[in-house]
């Protein structure tokens, strides 16, 4: 069942203040978080979070397309890296 619209998106409150501090500092920091349940808000765009997956903190570089999703969606708890073959990675 979908969450009621009047409540707004869920986000752990402490993340808002810390993210704002990280943004104003202007430093390129990874913000390590355990809150996989928090919704990605527009004010997080451009920041990099290290989202805990129960084992390690995976870097999540937030962009516009991720707004509305949960942080946990980008830090899978079960991973299969597969085979490299001809797959490529682009440096951001």
């Amino acid at each position, binding site marked *: 069942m979908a969450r009621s619209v009047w409540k707004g998106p869920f986000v*752990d409150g*402490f*993340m808002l203040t*810390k993210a704002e501090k*990280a943004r104003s500092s202007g*430093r*390129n*920091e*990874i*913000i*390590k*978080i*355990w*809150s996989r349940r928090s919704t990605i808000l527009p004010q997080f765009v451009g920041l*990099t979070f*290290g989202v805990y997956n129960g084992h*390690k*903190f*995976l*870097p*999540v*570089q*937030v962009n516009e397309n*991720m707004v509305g999703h949960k942080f946990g*969606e*980008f*830090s*899978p708890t079960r*991973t299969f*890296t*597969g*085979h*490299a*073959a*001809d*797959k*490529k*990675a*682009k*440096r*951001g």
Partner: protein
Amino acid sequence: MADTRILMGVVGRPHGVRGLVHVHSYTAEPADLARYNPLLDDAGRAWSLAWRGEGVAELRDAAGRPVADRNQAERLVNARLYVDRARLPKPDAEEFYLADLVGLEARDAAGLRLGQVAAVHDYGAGTSLEIERAALSPVIVPFTRDAVPDVDVASGYVTVVPPSEIELREAAG
């Protein structure tokens, strides 16, 4: 030879009685496996692959003879198919093959060894490199110009400048 070969796929079970086989392609686009013909197996034999259906392929040997029947196809089950690294097309600027990145030595800004690139992660939120360190837990850095300013595949190293980290826990109570 093993160092320069890249695993591109594996032959699966036979399909029908005319020598067709299922092939598990590991390429980014599975159908692209046929573009890398000829493919080499573990014994060094060359095979030419042509898709005949969804995941089903016809294999021909170096002389152009197709796999004749199901019995012959069964002998190919689990055969690994490789191509030489030199045959992969040159990647675009700022693009790197995962096969090139994994195994590179990671150095810090001063040139001292940090560890080795163990894996490349991409789960839809940017690519990151996992650096395995001796006697220390692995470190994962975003694959950006800031964190990985230098990638020298030919010399076998990447320069890594791990960004500082701040922890964000919910206050107790």
